[in-house]
C-alpha cells in the first residue's frame, strides 16, 4: 500500500519534471551541421533554429519579432547542443558525463549563458521558412562558437573531468605527428624533404600545442633496429617506421596523415582542392583510435592554405576521438607496454618459469593487463597501473627487476629501451 502511495506521488512529479524540461531552455530543433574548425578554439556551425508560437485561439496570430528572436536563440542553443552532445564527436561522451549534464542543462542553455559562447553569427539567414500556417519559423544561420570556453565551463560545472585534474593524475597524452610513410620509406625524410608534409605536421602540431598536449618530434630514426631486435612481436611491424618511432619516443598516441591535392582550370585560374586523411593510433598496440578525411574547398589559392583548410576539417574530429579514448584509458590507470625477452641460452623450462613469475608480478602490480604475445622466450604485455603507486616507468622497472633477480639469480637484466610508455628489457645469462 505504501509502495502504491509512493508511486502515485512520484509519477506526477516525474511527469511534471519532464514537462518542465521540455518547455525550458533546451533547444527545440537540435539540427546543426559542422562547417569548419576556424582555429584551435573556435568552430563554425550551421545551426537551425525554430521559433514557435502556440495560438491560444484562432485569432491569436504570432508576433514576427518574437518568432524571429525565438528562432535565433534556438539556433544558438542548437549549435551549442551540437558541440556538447550532438554530431559524431561531442564533448560529452561517457554516460556519466551525460548524466551530470542532465542536472545542469537548464541553466547551461539559458539565453545569457549561451550568448557567452557565440563569437560571431551571420547577419544573413541561410534559410528562412515559415511552417505550420505561419506559427512556426525555421531559420538557418552560421554561428561561430568558442568551443574551448564551452569545454572549460563544462569542466567548471564538474560535468567533464577537468584537464588539470587529468594532468595531475595521468598527464595529457604525448602525441607524435608524422606523415604516413609507404613501406620502406622513412617518414622523417618525407617531413624534411617535402614542404607539403611539413606544413601538414605544423598545422596538426599547432592544434595540439594550443590544447596543451605534449607534442613529440622524432628527429632521427636510429635505434629502431635495436628496438625491433629486442622483441619478436615488433618484427611483424618492422616496416612500419612511424609506429616504431612512436614507440621509441614514448608517445602515447601517434597521428599520421596523408595529403592529396587536385587541380583544374576554371577559365585561366587554377583551382586546387586538398584532401587530408588524418589517423590517430594508440602507440602501444597500433590500434586505430580515429580516422577522418578533411577536404578543402576548391580555391585558386596557395597549397599551404588549402592543406590547412583540409586539416582543419579533419583534426577536430580526430582529437575528439583521442580525448574520448584518453578519458576511457584514464579509468584503467597508466598504460605501459612491457616487452621482456630472455636469452635463448636458457633452456625453455627456465625461461618459462621466469615468464610465469613475470606475468604474476605484472598482474600483481597492475590494475589490469593485456597479453599481446607470449612465446618461449618473449613476453609482450600491456599493463595499466595505479599512478599513485607507480608514478613513472622506472618504478615499474625496479619492481620487475626485483622479480627477475629473484627468479633468475644467474640472469642479468639489461634495459634496451625505457621511456614513459615503453619498457623493453633483455635478460642475458651471466
Amino acid at each position, binding site marked *: 500500500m505504501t509502495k502504491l502511495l509512493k508511486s502515485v506521488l512520484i509519477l506526477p512529479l516525474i511527469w511534471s519534471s519532464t514537462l518542465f524540461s521540455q518547455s525550458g531552455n533546451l533547444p527545440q530543433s537540435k539540427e546543426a551541421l559542422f562547417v569548419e574548425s576556424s582555429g584551435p578554439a573556435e568552430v563554425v556551425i550551421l545551426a537551425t533554429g525554430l521559433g514557435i508560437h502556440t495560438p491560444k485561439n484562432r485569432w491569436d496570430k504570432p508576433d514576427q519579432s518574437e518568432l524571429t528572436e525565438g528562432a535565433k536563440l534556438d539556433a544558438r542553443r542548437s549549435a551549442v547542443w551540437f558541440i556538447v552532445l550532438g554530431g559524431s564527436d561531442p564533448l560529452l561522451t561517457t554516460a556519466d558525463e551525460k548524466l551530470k549534464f542532465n542536472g545542469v542543462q537548464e541553466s547551461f542553455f539559458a539565453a545569457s549563458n549561451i550568448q557567452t559562447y557565440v563569437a560571431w553569427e551571420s547577419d544573413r539567414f*541561410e534559410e528562412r521558412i515559415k511552417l505550420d500556417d505561419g506559427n512556426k519559423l525555421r531559420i538557418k544561420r552560421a554561428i561561430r562558437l568558442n568551443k574551448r570556453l564551452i569545454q572549460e565551463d563544462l569542466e567548471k560545472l564538474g560535468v567533464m573531468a577537468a584537464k588539470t585534474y587529468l594532468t595531475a593524475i595521468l598527464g595529457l597524452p604525448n602525441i607524435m605527428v608524422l606523415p604516413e610513410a609507404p613501406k620502406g620509406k622513412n617518414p622523417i625524410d618525407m617531413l624534411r624533404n617535402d614542404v607539403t608534409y611539413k606544413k601538414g605536421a605544423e598545422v596538426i602540431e599547432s592544434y595540439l600545442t594550443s590544447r596543451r598536449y605534449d607534442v613529440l618530434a622524432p628527429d632521427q630514426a636510429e635505434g629502431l633496429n635495436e628496438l625491433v631486435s629486442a622483441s619478436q612481436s615488433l618484427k611483424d611491424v618492422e616496416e612500419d617506421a612511424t609506429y616504431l618511432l612512436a614507440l621509441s619516443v614514448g608517445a602515447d598516441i601517434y597521428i599520421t596523415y596523408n595529403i592529396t591535392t587536385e587541380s*583544374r582550370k576554371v577559365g585561366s585560374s587554377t583551382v586546387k582542392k586538398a584532401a587530408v586523411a588524418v589517423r590517430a593510433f594508440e602507440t602501444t598496440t597500433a590500434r586505430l583510435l580515429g580516422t577522418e578525411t578533411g577536404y578543402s574547398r576548391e*580555391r585558386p589559392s596557395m597549397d599551404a592554405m588549402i592543406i590547412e583548410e583540409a586539416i582543419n576539417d579533419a583534426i577536430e574530429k580526430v582529437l575528439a576521438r583521442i580525448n574520448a579514448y584518453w578519458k576511457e584509458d584514464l579509468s584503467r590507470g597508466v598504460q605501459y607496454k612491457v616487452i621482456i625477452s630472455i636469452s635463448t641460452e636458457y633452456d625453455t623450462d627456465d625461461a618459462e618459469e621466469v615468464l610465469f613469475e613475470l606475468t604474476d608480478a605484472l598482474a600483481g602490480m597492475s590494475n589490469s593487463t593485456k597479453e599481446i604475445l607470449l612465446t618461449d622466450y618473449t613476453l609482450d604485455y600491456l599493463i595499466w597501473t595505479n599512478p599513485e603507486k607507480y608514478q613513472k616507468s622506472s618504478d615499474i622497472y625496479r619492481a620487475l627487476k626485483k622479480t627477475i633477480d629473484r627468479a633468475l639469480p644467474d640472469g642479468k637484466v639489461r634495459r634496451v629501451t625505457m621511456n614513459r610508455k615503453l619498457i623493453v628489457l633483455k635478460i642475458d645469462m651471466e
Partner: protein
Amino acid sequence: MQKLIMATLLILLVISTSFAQQDEYTRKSITFLDAVILASSSSRDMSTRQVDYTASGVKRMVQLERFDYNPIPSNSRLMSDFSYQVRKSSDLSMDALAGILNKTFVAEIVKIMDENAENRASMLVDETARMSFVATKAKDLGITAENLEKVFNSGYIYLPFINGFSESTQAEKVEDVMWYESQVSISGGILWFKIDYDDGHTSIRPLLERATSSTGFAKKKNAKDAEWSAFTMAADNYARNLEVATKDIEDFKLKTQVMEVAGAHIGFNMGRKEGVHVDDRFLLGETMMDSDGQLSFKKDGFARVKSVGNNRDNPGAMSYGYGVIVGDWAPGMSLIEYPTLPLDIYGMLGLIPLSTDETGFDLSSQFALGVEMAYNLSQIVNSSHWYLTGGAALGNAQRDDGAETLYGGITYADISVMKRFQWRRLDAYAKGGIAYMGLFLTDERYVEYNDRTYTYDSETYGAVLGGGVNLTLNIDWAVGLRYNYYLGESDTWTVKDDEDTEYDDMTFNTNHTGGAIMFQLIFSPKALGFDPLAALGNLSE
C-alpha cells in the same frame, strides 16, 4: 544496402541544400554589342543616325549599376564579322542569332570575363566565407571555384532589335507660317542571350525577349527638326521602357534580405553599387512551407527606399526604406525589387473654379476631367518623394445672363513641384507652380441671322497651390482627393467666327481664382506608349 544508399543520398541532399543561400541577387556581367538588329523592312528604312541614336539610347538606359560590363569595341573585327553574318543571314530568329554569337563572340567574351574573373568572384564571397579561417587567418580573398564558375555563368549578351518603324509629317500653314507636325513610332526590344560555362566549355543560348513600342510627336517650323524631335522623343521613351523591362527580368531583379526592422522602417544591404535609388519600390515577403512540404512565396506588403547606402566606398553601408503597405515584418524576410518608371500618372475627376465679377452674369463649370504626370525628382535631389508634375484638366463651362446660356469648356494646365509625405498607406502632399487657364464659349445666338457661330476665348497665366491625401491600394495603385487653389484672372476675350475671322477683343471678366476639388486615381506604370512631358514640349508652339 538500399537503405544505406538512401540514407547517404538523403544526407548529401541535406548538406548540399543547407548551404543554398536564400535567393539573393548576384552581379551579372553583361556584354553589349554596338549593333541593332533591323528585323523588318520598315526598320531598315531608318537612317544610320536614327539607328545609332536608338542603340546608344538603349545602351545608356540598360547599362545598369547592378551589372559588370564586358565591352566589345564597336570597330573591332569581331563586330564587323558579326554584322556581316547578321546581314547575310535570312533567319534572324533568336536561335539563329545565338548560333552567330557562338561562332563570333563567345571566345572573346570569355577572354574578357576571365581577365576580371577573380576580382568579380571576390564580390560573391558571402558573409560566412568572409569570417572563415581562409579569410581571417590566411588573409585570402576566400574565393572558391564555385564563385569563379558563378562569374563565368553570370554572363549575358543583349542585342537591341527594331521590328517596326514609321514616320509621317504633315505641313500646315498657320497665320502665314508653315508648321510641320511629325509622328514617329518605333517598336522593338532587346534580345537576351545567356552564356553557359561548364567545365571549360562555353556556349551561348537564347534566353528571352523583351519588347516595347513608343511614339513621338513634334510640331516645328522646320520639317527636319520636327521629324528629329518626334524621333528622339519616341527613341528616348523606347529606351526608358526597355530599362524597366530589363530590371523586371527575374535574373536581374535586385533581391536581398531585410537586415533590420524598426516599426515600418527597414534596412538592407544594397545600395549605390547595385543602383538602388530613392523611392524605388521593393516587395517584401517570405517563404512558406505547407503541410505537403511545398514551398511558396508569400508577399507581405512593400516598402520604398528612403536613403541609399554608399556601399561602393563602404561595403557594409546599408540602405533604408519605409513601409507603405506594412506587413508583419522581421529581419531575414526577402526583399524583391519591383521596377516601375520613375513617374506616376494621375487621373482626376471633379470641379475646377470659374466665375466672373460681371454683374448679372454667372460663369461657372460643373465638372472636369484631368490627367497629371508626376516625374520623380528624388534621384536628383536625393530626398524622397519630390516630383515635378505636369498636368491638364478639361471641364465644361457655361455663361448664363439670366436669359440665355453659352456653353463651352475650360482648360487648366500647370507645371508644379510637389512633395509627398508618406505614412504607411496614407500620404499627403503639397504642391505649387504656375498654371495656364483657358476658357472658350461658343455663341450660336446669331446663326439664324448670319449663319455664323462665334467663339470667345480667354487665356491667362497664374499660380496654383495645392494639397491632397492619397490612400495606397497596392504597389501600383492609389486613390486620393486633391484640393488646388488657382490664382488667375482675365478681362479680355478674343472673338472669332467659325471661318476664323477675328473681331475686336471683348472685355469681360473671367475669374479663375478659387479652389478645385478632385477625386484622383494614381497609377505607377512600367512602360508608356509616349512621354507626355516631352510631347507637351514638342507640341507647344
